[in-house]
């Protein structure tokens, strides 16, 4: 019994982790916590669904989803984000809510609520672990999460672009005075996170449901995973996402709290963060 919920929890956790990683990657390079991340992914997923309805082959749908999300991400990164670059991180973050509302409104306008289902070829595959069937899509999410976590961690650490991204996230103005081509580097970051958002949206569209509202606000539990990684550490974000998933799934077994299990991301994030901060002294101005 426990095993079943453990496996299901890991599968769920991978969902949180994957979007958490996407959030952290962008935040680390641009200082923007993108609340529109879910909405961008949702747009990709809806487009993929639409193309499937129009009988286009599946690869076309995949490409369209990734492309649409990347374009949206780039559009915001190039056209809007630079104007807000000198603002504090919280303002930069809440500004993306404006973008999220725009995307959500547009998506809802074109795709009025109706029964929908996104099919991916990975749905047909699957294997069993501890009596739980893991579909190809879920396995893909888990693998992709692991791959992006470590791939991007290595990329940021060992490449020049990674270094410049870190510099930018730290102090944008000083970096530009030091000669860092701000716009170009930020464009890379928005590009990478756009691709990730598209991929995440596609996966969520399949696993959750292709519904713009539901996908848009999934960003909030995803932020919980990112918080566990202090918006900084990709492996910790991964761990955070998985722990959150397992806790949420396992609390199904405790009757009185089972109906409230969706609260797990927030409780786990708050507790883990407080615990990770236990040795910190009072903060000094300018440091988070």
């Amino acid at each position, binding site marked *: 019994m426990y095993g079943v919920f453990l496996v299901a929890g890991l599968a769920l956790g991978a969902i949180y982790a994957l979007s958490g990683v996407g959030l952290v990657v962008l935040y680390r390079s641009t200082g923007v916590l993108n609340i529109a991340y879910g909405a961008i992914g949702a747009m990709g997923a809806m487009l993929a669904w639409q193309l499937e309805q129009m009988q286009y082959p599946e690869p076309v749908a995949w490409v369209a989803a990734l492309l649409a999300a990347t374009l949206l991400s780039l559009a915001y990164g190039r056209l809007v984000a630079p104007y807000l670059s000198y603002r504090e991180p919280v303002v930069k973050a809440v500004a993306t809510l404006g973008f999220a509302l725009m995307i959500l409104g547009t998506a809802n306008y074109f795709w009025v609520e109706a029964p929908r289902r996104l099919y991916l070829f990975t749905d047909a595959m699957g294997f069993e672990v501890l009596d739980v069937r893991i579909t190809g899509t879920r396995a893909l999410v888990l693998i992709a999460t692991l791959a992006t976590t470590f791939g991007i961690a290595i990329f940021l650490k060992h490449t020049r672009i990674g270094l410049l991204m870190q510099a930018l996230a730290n102090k944008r103005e*000083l970096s*530009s*005075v030091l*000669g860092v081509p701000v716009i170009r580097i930020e464009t890379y970051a928005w590009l990478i996170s756009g691709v990730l958002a598209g991929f995440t949206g596609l996966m969520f569209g399949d696993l959750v449901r292709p519904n713009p509202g539901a996908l848009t606000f999934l960003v909030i539990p995803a932020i919980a995973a990112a918080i566990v990684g202090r918006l900084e550490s990709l492996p910790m974000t991964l761990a955070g996402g998985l722990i959150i998933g397992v806790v949420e799934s396992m609390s199904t077994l405790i009757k009185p709290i089972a109906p409230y299990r969706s609260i797990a991301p927030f409780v786990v994030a708050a507790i883990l963060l407080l615990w990770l901060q236990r040795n910190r002294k009072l903060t000094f101005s300018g440091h988070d």
Partner: protein
Amino acid sequence: MSAILEIDNLNVVRGHKPVLRNLSLRIEAGKTVALLGPNGAGKSSLVLAMAGVLPIASGIISLDGQNLVNRPPEIIRRSGIAAILEGHQVLTDLTVEENLRVAGFYLGQEDLLAEMNKAYEIFPELLELRKRLAGTLSGGQQQMVAVAHALMAKPKFILADELSLGLAPVIVKRLMSVLEALANKGCGILLIEQFTHVALRLADYVYVINRGRVHFQGLPAEVQANPRVLHEAYLAGDFELAKS
């Protein structure tokens, strides 16, 4: 061929307040120009404007005839003007070595290492600290990193704002000789210093500004011979203040 960095009739506004008013100034390669002035005169604003951080309302900044007005900071840096901003500005979340790598990222790998080693030679302290996050350094150590940033860029011109602020005398001396050496190699230097005597000793030419305007320009000897020049320039500000 000697490069010239020229500023002509520059106007800069911060908030709603003009901080530089029709300011003209010129730095030649291999020469050190001291920029003096009381607090709030606009010295730092000039550096920021030249570095491309502050928008320029009107006027010309040109490097060998190439106009740099309102170009992005990284372009200005890449064209050979390295500014050391006021207040020991470093990338706090990066290590010292990463700081230097960022500052010289557009050099080739070999060049980068060579420049980095040169910087470490000038500041052996930094070699020991190279794995530390710059944010945890002492004020003076951060200032060394800030200077090293500029050195990494192999600049044609260095704009140094309050270079000696917070540095021990031993380091200030070392820095001054570094600047001298750079000037000898053909680098033009704009030196902003509160310690007037230090600046005057090094400078080939002096500007005294107040309230965004040039009040005096001439040879350091003139200022040294006649300190009233400085006082009058400073007072000019107060006088205007009293009027307004």
